[in-house]
């Protein structure tokens, strides 16, 4: 009996999660509500069945996610009986940090990077699962499955450990932490095929529907609530759009599409060949931005 590539990827991810459950003192799963998080959560439910996963979910909330993401997040936690922690950076709330006034770089830094560090320190989590994949971007290709962070949450690229066979070294000193990426070896296509095969629920925003959008700098931005300031002469228009990645709605570009089923989404992905991170405004800020963000503690 030959295992399929999805069965082998599934087995590897489950192995990684169990290894963390066995060796970490206080693990947590970062849950971003997107499709990769959906797959990661589904795998966790499998890994520990019939127990529930022995760790909580943590959503680092920027206050600017799509409304459908919040609804979906709360429904999943409730239905699966999981402990969901939500952290919003109180400093950012106080200063009313938002992507419109402060720009994507500052917004992301304070509401995501800083907020994540705050939450990990506050709860004393020593291992945090993240849904990042090596195929997302060139600088991730060499990322370890177990990625070490100093007590200041910094990623030290010179001080990472070789990973051989299925052996992961999870030992660390007090204060140090590990980010663990169980989906390291999955590609975007694997994720979609697995969602299809396993009937994994995902946020409806991935499917195309008529949504109110405005076009800015060649990107379609959905007007998700009335906090979005419209430029003079700008009127939201209803277009058939969907999202290839999900984040803060003012920073996430929609694509025009009629794909409203999983096979149609996968078909579209295979036929239109631009990589998924194109939809993320944050990546365009500077060339080496991802590497820099990672050193600073962004996932």
């Amino acid at each position, binding site marked *: *009996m*030959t*295992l*399929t*590539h*999805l*069965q*082998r990827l*599934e*087995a*590897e991810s*489950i*192995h990684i999660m*169990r*290894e963390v*459950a*066995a060796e970490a003192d206080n693990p947590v799963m970062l849950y971003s509500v997107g499709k990769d998080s959906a797959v990661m959560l589904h795998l966790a*439910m*499998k*890994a*520990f*069945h*019939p*127990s529930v996963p022995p760790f909580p979910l943590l959503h680092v909330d920027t206050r600017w996610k799509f409304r459908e993401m919040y609804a979906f997040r709360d429904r999943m936690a409730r239905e699966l009986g999981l402990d969901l922690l939500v952290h919003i950076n109180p400093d950012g709330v106080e200063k009313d940090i938002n992507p419109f006034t402060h720009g994507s770089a500052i917004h992301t830094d304070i509401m995501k990077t800083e907020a994540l560090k705050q939450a990990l320190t506050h709860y004393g989590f020593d291992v945090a699962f993240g849904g990042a994949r*090596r*195929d997302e971007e*060139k*600088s991730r*290709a*060499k990322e370890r499955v177990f990625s070490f962070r100093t007590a200041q949450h910094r990623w030290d*690229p*010179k001080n*990472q*450990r*070789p*990973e*051989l*066979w*299925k*052996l992961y*070294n999870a*030992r*660390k000193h007090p204060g140090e932490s590990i980010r663990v990426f169980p989906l390291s*070896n999955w*590609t975007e296509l*694997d994720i979609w*095929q697995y969602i299809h*095969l396993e009937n994994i629920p995902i946020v409806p925003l991935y499917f195309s529907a008529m949504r109110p959008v405005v076009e800015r700098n060649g990107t379609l931005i959905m007007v998700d609530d009335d906090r979005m300031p419209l430029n003079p002469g700008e009127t939201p228009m209803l277009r058939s759009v969907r999202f290839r990645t999900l984040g803060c709605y003012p920073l996430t570009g929609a694509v025009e599409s009629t794909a409203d089923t999983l*096979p*149609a989404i*996968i*078909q579209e992905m*295979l*036929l239109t*060949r*631009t*990589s998924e991170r*194109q939809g993320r405004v944050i990546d365009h800020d500077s060339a*080496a931005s991802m*590497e820099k963000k990672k050193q600073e503690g962004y996932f």
Partner: protein
Amino acid sequence: MAHVSDLIADDIEQYLHLHQHKGLLRFITCGSVDDGKSTLIGRLLYESQMLFEDHLAALQADSRRWGTQGEEIDFALLVDGLAAEREQGITIDVAYRFFSTDRRKFIVADTPGHEQYTRNMVTGASTADVAILMVDARKGILTQTRRHSYLVSLLGIRAIVVAINKMDLVDYSEPVYRRIREDYEAFARQIGVEAVTFIPVSAFKGDNIVSPSPNMDWYRGPTLMGYLETVEIDEDRMQAAPLRLPVQWVNRPNLDFRGYAGTLAGGVVRPGDRIRVQPSGKESTVARIVTRDGDLEQAVAGQSVTLTLTDEIDISRGDMISAAREPAGTADQFETTLIWMHDEPLLPGRQYLLKLGTRTVTASVTTIKYQVNVNTLEHTAAKKLELNAIGVCNISLDRPVAFDPYTDNRDTGGFILIDRLSNNTVAAGLIHFALRRSQNIHLQPVDINQEAHARLKGQRPCVLWFTGLSGAGKSTIANLVEKKLHAEGRHTYLLDGDNIRHGLNKDLGFTDADRVENIRRVGEVARLMVDAGLIVLTAFISPFRSERQMARELLKDGEFLEIFVDTPLEAAEARDPKGLYRKARRGELKNFTGIDSPYERPESPEIHVDTTRMTPEAAADLIVEHIRNGGYLAP
């Protein structure tokens, strides 16, 4: 264009159905940039259409700017985009790339860089089914080809492809291909490599990569992609091996359920199978294979499962569930190959953590039998292993573990060593076999034990471990403490550094490796004396934390008292009672602690003596008081 079939546009459901049944192959590419390795990987990604438009646009821009191929796309830039990282001093060890065709998904371990080559290749090879060795048709088999072949076969990769590249630059010559092939075959026989496939290619032009090359009609073998799509995957072979399940996590949601979770490292498991738990040896029967989608009728090597058993037996993480009729071996001493992966060298006698499967134990290397020169394959004697060195070593564990030889099973025979202080992964290890003596030597129980010896002497035995720089005053203070205890009628013995080196340890010098062995022996002697009921005083520089820790762990809790005789280097050097500092400063004495060999200060000694504020007499009083208060002098 293997990936884009018309099916995507015409019948996506059918396409998805086909692709859900693809297998997965992991391979590693070996060779330097000059051999065209990056070009090959770039070509495979390109041909399988795993490049997105934005990646491709960036690649075209980069090719014009940086490329070495004129107006054509330089595929090497796809995977070589790491220049910035090199400038930042980031270690690039293994990068993983992904592509897929209609038949398989592929994960490529790409190991650039030369300095860390052994370490990186071994890491990438540990999970690979196939190795592609790149050979430049113009240069033929080089030293590095031999080195790569040795490492690949050492790590147990059974399928090796020699890709003879740049055939376009030798006019697609069949004689060139034949000569390289014969050269390699002669060498492969020497190192016992079988099953080698030779493919003449041009990664740059695309010959024999995806479709057979019209320029080499004399070649009738598979294309590289054709080979990768059909070669046997190692994990299939592992299904024929005996059942092995290293227990990762015990699943106990409630009192009625007790499941053992882990990834099957070998064989097939079905309900009703008779199993043995190792190393305890208890037997039971598999009751269920539990998953969230319902119970399974069978599970195979490579799957992550949860088993329940028909009997309630004690099983915890680190145990192995094996086929009762074909159990794994259990032992605590092995012959192994170690690949050293850290700047700090391996020192025999030093204790490391060893992780094998899901079990972590304490281990130390007892003997380095020889080191292997990866270029010439010669064996040389070695006292330590440096970064990237490979050695055959005997290793001793603090308790027995279940194992298979690495050649039988990579997951139950491959291990890592972890440094206990830095927590770094310092070595990869491959088990050859259990040493017979580990199966035959048992501890002899004795009737007159430590307690009996101690009772007769009316004291609680312990070790007073003095550590500090040469000239700090260790021997002086230890001598005073012993006199005071002797005057009270206590049974003591002083082990002094210089005296021991005249006898028991006269074969040892002052290298790091010898210092470790020196302290190991002293620790063992002190332990025997504690067993005899004595209060033992030791006065050794003992500069390394890990060896002091090793000595501490030979004894029971409370039996080891570390006394830090704290004298600043300047003060010790000013005293210089034996004239050693002067000699060291003149360069006549090598490896002298404090001068050209480090002293690692104790982090939390039981007793801290600051000799700049205290006379030796007062220090001795302080120590005697401390052990009196600790109850060591009470009967």
